[in-house]
């Protein structure tokens, strides 16, 4: 459980997700990184440049400050990590299982939430946009590749998400290990 907690803390050191927009005019692509508490770009001005592109189709500007998840998500992870450390000390596999189930639930919820944001940015467009194409939505893929007008959008999880997955795996291991030990002792 200790390792599971540490893996969660490592989520702060790496982005969770990466969305890259590729077009001929952007030979290196415009990459946006989503972290537990911020959104960054491949260069300091990338977010501004993506927003400039998006304003032509009427997409809302991506402003990290106005996304509440980026404010509170970090505390949830800290709480999960803190609980993991506590559970490591308690060494009760049933408690570990409860922790794991809630974490997996939270993870699934986060991905769904991410999808909702993408849906919102992609569909909730300014009716006065300069470029309007009937029936067109600009939602980037949750995972994988999608062609949106002149851009190819790529969306892939990053190390941060992998550490969360690792934490879940470690949590699962601790549950199994705990049950096995219990049986031996019992």
């Amino acid at each position, binding site marked *: 459980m200790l390792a599971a907690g540490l893996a969660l803390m490592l989520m702060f050191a790496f982005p969770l997700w990466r969305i890259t927009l590729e077009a001929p005019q952007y030979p290196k692509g415009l990459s946006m990184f989503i972290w537990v508490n911020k959104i960054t770009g491949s260069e300091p*001005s990338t977010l501004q440049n993506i927003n400039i592109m998006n304003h*032509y189709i009427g997409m809302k500007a991506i402003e990290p400050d106005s996304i509440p998840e980026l404010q509170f998500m970090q505390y949830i992870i800290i709480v999960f990590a803190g609980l993991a450390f506590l559970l490591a000390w308690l060494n009760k596999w049933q408690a570990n299982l409860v922790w794991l189930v809630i974490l997996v639930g939270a993870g699934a919820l986060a991905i769904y939430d991410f999808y909702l944001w993408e849906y919102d940015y992609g569909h909730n467009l300014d009716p006065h946009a300069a*470029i309007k194409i009937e029936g067109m939505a600009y939602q980037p893929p949750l995972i994988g590749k999608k062609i949106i007008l002149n851009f190819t959008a790529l969306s892939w999880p990053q190390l941060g998400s992998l550490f969360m997955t690792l934490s879940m795996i470690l949590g699962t291991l601790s549950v199994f290990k705990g049950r096995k030990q219990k049986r031996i002792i019992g």
Partner: protein
Amino acid sequence: MNLKSIRNLFVLSLVLGLMASCGGNKSGAGGPLGAGDAAQKVYVAPGEYDDFYAFLSGGFSGQVSVYGLPSGRLLKVIPVFSLDAEKAWGFNDETKPMLETRHGFIPWDDAHHPELSQTDGVPDGRWLFINANNTPRIARIDLTTFETVEIIELPNSAGNHSSPFTTPNTDYVVAGTRFAVPIPQRDMPINEYAGNFKAALSFVSIADDGRMDIAFQILMPGFNYDLAHSGKGPSDGWMFFSSYNTEESNTLLEVEASKHDKDFIAAINWKMAEQLVADGKFEEMNSPYMVNFYDEHTHMATSETRNSVKTIKAADHPGLVYFMPTPKSPHGVDIDPSGEYIVGSGKLSADLTVHSFTKMKAAIAAEDFEDERYGIPVLNFDATLAGVVKSGGLGPLHTEFDNNGNAYTSFFISSEIVKWKVGTWEVLDRAPCYYSIGHLMVPGGDSKQPWGKYLLALNKITKDRYLPTGPELNQAAQLFDISGGKMQLILDFPTIGEPHYAQAIPADLIIEQQKQIYKLEENMHPYAVKSEDEVKVTREGNVVRIYLTTIRSHFAPDNIEGIMVGDEVHFHVTNLEQDFDVPHGFAIMGAQTSELLIMPGQTESNVWYPKYEGVIPFYCTDFCSALHQEMQGYIRVSAKGSNPELKWWVGTDE
């Protein structure tokens, strides 16, 4: 050979040259087979990069053009000494001070010799220097932005031709004068030139940040100092200037200044001059000059006047200057990569005279002097002579070197390049030029470690090389592959202005240092606005300032009211973009100035004097985006004295 026979030869070769060029017998890359080979050598596939950046002086265009080699593709024209309406150079408030001199604002000059800064005798890609020949100045171009960032004026100089040649670590760039003049200037009869006129050789110090200052000037006899090159390796610490008109004549120089069989290469011990200055052995002379500096953070140039220079009289300090007799009005003075050989090109001669630095030192030690001019020892010609290149050509001008111990000399009159071996003086190859080559350039060919590979011929006469374009033709550059034993002509391309000299550097050395944008948060321009929330219009009397921003695809504000006929309207336009290659332009109808072309993160300003009432449009001149055409606005101009309220907006209706 007497004077008359030289002149006859000159006329004959001109006639022959003209006949050759009028005959329509065009020569080129050596027939069909050679042409295919040449095409491959210069082919840079779409999206690929050239191996070298080449910097060609613009001559009478006053600018520097940057080409890729071997493709010959034009990459950029850098405005330096001449107005450039395209880039607002000398038109916007920010760059006007760059062209200020003690004579006032000067919109043009004649730029001859680009010179890359060096570290340990090798071009390092920090800066490019270039001289203004007419109103003596030196400019410094920053090679992270390819922009001119400093221009220093040279007092006591006239005809800044032997300039700006660097010492091996860019401690100094030198600037000799090709006209002798009274120093200090005064009203005196022209025909009292001899013995009275002087020539100043300026040593311009280059600080670690590139800033220029005149460290000292050496006052020389009034000969015409034509070109220069620094010693290196064993000859480091010495600077060599070629000279002509040691006859000191002031009229019909083509005859009068060709009388002496030999003129001089002046060897200057600049380390000693440096020490003299440190020891206080100089005279401070009141001679004001201007220094113009462009600050990348304020995006603005300022002019400063400095009042005096430290001067050293050459004749007063034994050991400071020696003259080496060199036949036939030497033009180029070129030092081989080892630093041992000093090549003088007597421009009315068939031969090259090569002096040895070792022998020069020995002759100085032995006081082997054949004469003295104005107190300066003239070394015995035979004592310093290392060899003569019997070229078989006529009219040698300049020599560059490769990385295999070979030298290449341009011959104007016989219109060819002669390749010869340093040390044996044996001629190895010759290649015709189309037509009448001036300078030539091998990448790093004037440095301690030439990169070799290519040779660029900078020709003075074009004639029939390209599709005809009326009487005025662009000058021709020709690229040779010199990697084999024989020089092979592989490309011919037209240039901008009249390239005199050129420099080249491997692309790898400077490609990574290129700036893509200016950071908006570092913009310290006094009239910058960093977001659309800050835009405003202010009035003080009849001076109106409009603080505008640009971002794809609109101005803020784009509607402005409250301007009156007779106002002086300043536009301060900040480009809020932070993306590579997204400049915006700005132009307003009736402005008696150029457009503005503003790079991301930059602020530029110009002035408009509205003359008539009405609603006047302005727009973005750079195709910035899909809605570039919509990037436009209006300014309402009301009657003089009507005092309308200042109003501005974007996206609303008031």
